[in-house]
């Protein structure tokens, strides 16, 4: 497979933080697309639910909108599906999580959180 030396050099600038940030954003986008697909909904249905024009929703999903937490929460509420799940610091023990392949679970970085690997493998 052909590789380009200048691109290879630029790839050295990819840090773990950059990977985390890009992966996170892709997961959010994929989750929204998946929910729409799962519910058999089209962009116009989401537009109706949110009281927006279809053109505006199209912009959101085509990538011309700067998503923020409020927007994500609004979509989450109207679709009645969680897009992002934040684990509270108070909950040190995590039980069985019924997640689908693209559910996004945000874990605080403190130590003491464990995920049962069998559950993860079985669910994914």
């Amino acid at each position: 497979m052909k590789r380009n030396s200048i691109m290879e050099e630029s790839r050295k600038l990819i840090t773990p933080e950059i990977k985390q940030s890009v992966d996170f954003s892709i997961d959010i986008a994929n989750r929204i697309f998946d929910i729409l697909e799962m519910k058999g909904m089209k962009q116009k249905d989401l537009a109706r639910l949110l009281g927006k024009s279809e053109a505006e929703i199209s912009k959101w999903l085509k990538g011309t909108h700067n998503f923020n937490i409020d927007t994500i929460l609004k979509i989450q509420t109207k679709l009645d599906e969680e897009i992002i799940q934040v684990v509270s610091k108070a909950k040190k023990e995590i039980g069985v999580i019924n997640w689908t392949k693209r559910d996004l679970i945000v874990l605080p970085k403190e130590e003491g959180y464990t995920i049962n690997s069998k559950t993860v493998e079985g669910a994914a």
Partner: protein
Amino acid sequence: MNSERKLSLILLEEYEKVNFYSFQFEDEAHTEFEKFLMAFNESHAKDIGTIMYRLERITEDGVFPRHFRYAGKHKDRTAELPSHFETANLRIYCICISPKILILGNGGLKTTRTYNEDNYLNNCVETLKKIDFELKTKEKAHRIHFTGKNITGELSLSIIYDGK
């Protein structure tokens, strides 16, 4: 002053699902995407890292709209990276030919609200739109073919370039 410029499509990198192309003007030593990387590698390392990792994810997923923000009309197939989710001022413009073919162009720092307000960035996008138009014309005339990940046929083309 307007002038005709000749360029060639160049295969940059091949992956299992996606091929990355760029284009090189006949009087230049590097492709537009290589020029972009060389110009910003040192001064904007984080933004370049973000773009490069976005491209890496595209090699896994395919060239799908969710990875880009579209510049101009969607039918132009001209888009920009990084997507709306990442915060960065550096933009690279490209043509999304198909889920398996991405043509990477040039770009720069976005300091205005829209790319149209910046002569240089606007020129980057307009160049891509002209190339896209030429590619569509050649495809209709069966002089160029987009087969799977590959572009074959006449890889040289001319566009009217305003040289701003």
